[in-house]
């Protein structure tokens, strides 16, 4: 699919200060993918187009500032968007033909247009509550974000954390019991962190001390935690649900002023304590990794452990404690299931969130902010499925259930390309 552009470099000798010469590799990947989606979009929105009017609701009833609803005629909107999509596809093809790189923002515009078109089509003669859609997206993304932060910390220090799923589930289970018994959600939160750390200890001990393959330990841990919590749930929690599995949930806290900003306020600032902790955690992990001594050493150990060792950094210790920290962060995400959203522990209630979080880590290129954005995207895909099945979209619900995972696969496989992780991630450091 790739061809090489003719090399027309000047032949005079290059000075020693210049970087290596480069050329643009002509790749038709992007125009072809955009073309396929344009055709699919055209088929859906125009050929199988629906008539009627789609309504986008922008405000909730409790907002101080009420925004008017946006009314879109379904079929004409579909036609306009199809034309725009075709235009962007043609533009990208022209860019490739003339040896230009297709910029990421153009692909983003394409994706947003496609999304709006799809929403309009699916909501013909229905009302889509936009704040509700986004609020739900954030809720579903919270455990993913905590899990992804745990994954970023762990992988940055050089240990592949496949056990995020196990850490989430252990956090959810423990926080349910502790919060139910003590009637203190804060203690439940603490217990979730401890549970996450305990799962991490096993991962750390086997992978760092005994050099067992990190992926295998992670997978085994997930199976172990799933089995253990499932067993304890049906043997202990289910018969004593009233005393052991009825944790008090965190109350929603409205942040004054901020919560009244249209659209943004209801989505981000009418949340529970765990979500506010998450905002702080994202900022703290970002700042910590890139601007502090802790982060510098952590990254050094994950990139080149021997170099870190030769400047007197304890590689094993750094890895061990940071993998534990990663477990604590992921454990918080587990607590959100029981103390933030559902309100009780259920068997296998994380349902693969840990693996989606792992995908967010890679999609976000091991950067806490980008991983958070990736988790939000996955949360949005999940909630889109919820909202559309509620308003009764014509798409079979089985297909909608596939959506978050389809987005994950496309995002990780298609858009990431050759992203480079921490060089020593997954490699045990064996001192001779």
């Amino acid at each position: 699919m790739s061809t090489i552009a003719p090399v027309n470099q000047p032949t005079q000798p290059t000075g020693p200060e210049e970087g290596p010469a480069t050329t643009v590799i002509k790749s038709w990947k992007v125009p072809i993918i955009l073309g396929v989606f344009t055709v699919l979009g055209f088929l859906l929105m125009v050929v199988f187009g629906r008539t009627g009017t789609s309504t986008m609701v922008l405000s909730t009833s409790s907002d101080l500032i009420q925004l008017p609803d946006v009314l879109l005629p379904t079929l004409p909107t579909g036609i306009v968007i199809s034309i725009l999509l075709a235009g962007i596809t043609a533009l990208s093809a022209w860019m490739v033909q003339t040896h230009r790189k297709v910029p990421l923002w153009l692909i983003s515009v394409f994706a947003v247009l496609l999304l709006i078109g799809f929403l309009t089509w699916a909501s013909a003669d229905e009302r889509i509550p936009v704040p509700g859609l986004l609020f739900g997206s954030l809720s579903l993304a919270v455990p993913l974000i905590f899990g992804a932060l745990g994954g970023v910390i762990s992988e940055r220090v050089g240990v592949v954390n496949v056990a995020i799923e196990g850490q989430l589930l252990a956090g959810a289970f423990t926080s349910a019991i502790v919060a139910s018994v003590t009637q203190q959600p804060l203690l439940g939160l603490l217990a979730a962190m401890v549970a996450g750390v305990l799962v991490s200890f096993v991962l750390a001990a086997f992978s760092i001390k005994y050099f067992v393959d990190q992926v295998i330990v992670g997978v085994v841990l997930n199976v172990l935690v799933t089995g253990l919590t499932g067993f304890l749930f049906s043997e202990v929690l289910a018969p004593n649900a009233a005393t052991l599995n009825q944790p008090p949930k965190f109350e929603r806290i409205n942040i004054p002023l901020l919560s009244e900003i249209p659209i943004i306020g209801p989505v981000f600032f009418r949340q529970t304590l765990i979500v506010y902790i998450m905002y702080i955690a994202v900022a703290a992990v970002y700042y910590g990794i890139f601007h502090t001594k802790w982060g510098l050493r952590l990254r050094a150990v994950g990139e080149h452990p021997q170099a870190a060792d030769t400047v007197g950094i304890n590689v094993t210790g750094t890895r061990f404690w940071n993998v534990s920290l990663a477990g604590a962060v992921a454990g918080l995400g587990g607590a959100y299931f029981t103390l933030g959203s559902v309100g009780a522990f259920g068997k296998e209630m994380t349902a693969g969130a840990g693996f989606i979080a792992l995908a967010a880590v890679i999609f976000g290129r091991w950067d806490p902010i980008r991983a958070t954005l990736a988790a939000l995207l996955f949360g949005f895909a999940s909630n889109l499925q919820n909202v559309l099945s509620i308003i009764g979209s014509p798409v079979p619900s089985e297909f909608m259930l596939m959506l978050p995972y389809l987005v994950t696969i496309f995002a990780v496989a298609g858009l990431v390309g050759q992203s480079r992780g921490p060089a020593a991630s997954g490699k045990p450091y064996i001192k001779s």
Partner: protein
Amino acid sequence: MKLELRGITKRFGALVANDDINLTIEEGEIHALLGENGAGKSTLMNVLYGLYRAEEGEILLDDVAQHFAGPGDAMNAGIGMVHQHFMLIPVFTVAENVMLGHEQTRVGGSLDLAAARARVREISDRFGFDVDPDALVENLPVGVQQRVEIIKALSRDAKVLVFDEPTAVLTPQETDELMNIMRQLKAAGTSIVFITHKLREVRAVADRITVIRLGKVVGDAAPTASNEELATLMVGRAVDLTVDKAPAAPGAPALVVTNLTVIDALGQILVNDVSFDVKVGEILAIAGVQGNGQTELTEALMGLQPRVVGDITLDGKSLRGHSVRQVLDAGVGFVPEDRTRDGLVGGFTIAENLMLDRSNKLPFVKRFNLQLAFLADFARDKVKEFDVRSQGIETPVGRLSGGNQQKVVLARELSRDLRLFIAAQPTRGLDVGSIEFVHERIVATRDAGTPVIVISTELDEVAALADRIMVMYRGRIVGIVPGDTPRSVLGLMMAGETPAEGAAA
């Protein structure tokens, strides 16, 4: 600071890597530690630096016994090390690398990068290094990376600086500059331990020379000693440093490469529009500092590079775009530069490695069955012919020494009917005895009428083997010159300067 090692003994299982080594380095002295690869020089320095724990012996600094639990202790005591494989984090900036391990922080715990930058600038100005503190290390040429290593050591006030094979990755010019830096450091009172196996460098810069062989100190020498004396001491027997070679009798061009360009996945041009030919019965040496496109060029010839434009013909037949299998079948023999990674399967036996590239047809395979009896006979033959020292053909090659491993690779490649032989870094990391052997075989291959390409970063090797020398710099050919071109001219060419007289061969 005066450094003294007393009776250091370090064992790895049954192997004694350092056997009762005594060494004294006076303050402000450049002390060369000379020895072959595997003599135990690096092990000794790793003991000194706290990376290994010695079984016996002690380390004294200014007559005070030291106990290093790790490199941190050694650094705090004033020992700095410039590692052979740089201990730098490629994705960090120079300043971040220098501050790592002794970071200064500001209020709020944020890294004080400004202070680290200032420290880098201060040291780099003092020695005229010209290093940008904000450059990413992976984007710097190796010569500059080495300076970052030196800055790293000096920023911790190292009084004893250990250079472990520092010239292996440098151009001749960079080597000269490094020698000057060493002299400057010495003048500033730093004691220097200079580990090397290159005789010329030792004689150029060292105040005293200690020779190590098989883990033992075998003697001291003055810098005035001759190459032959030092080599004899190092190897333990008289060695012939030159290669016996009759003048080449080149025939018709066999391999013709025209306008070959190799591009990586990101669009970087690794080999830039090169054209050359290799004639029957000659050795073309491709010289150049590591990383100037030689590796990618050989990979393109072998069919290992996916993005190649231009033409490659061997005996009139095109090779470009052919699979590795087809290239091998066309009669190309290849010794890859990293034998343990690309040349051999460490866990396989000598016999299995000898048939690796012929696992698809007779005589080794008949109707999907390995011909084990034939293979055993073949392997015994080759082991004898190439003098592979082992406990038998069933020995896994991973257990052989570097020299014997390379002989297995050579035996495999040279046992086919070759139309072209490509040897990349054929003697890297080998002992003197094996180097002599490999060079003899390469010359013998040439004399049998096979065109030979030797890729080497060692000027000694290039000078010893080449009938013609092609120098590469940044993916281009700087020039193709006769085999007897002076080292000084080659050195300039390796830095990218076109030869003044425009000599072409």
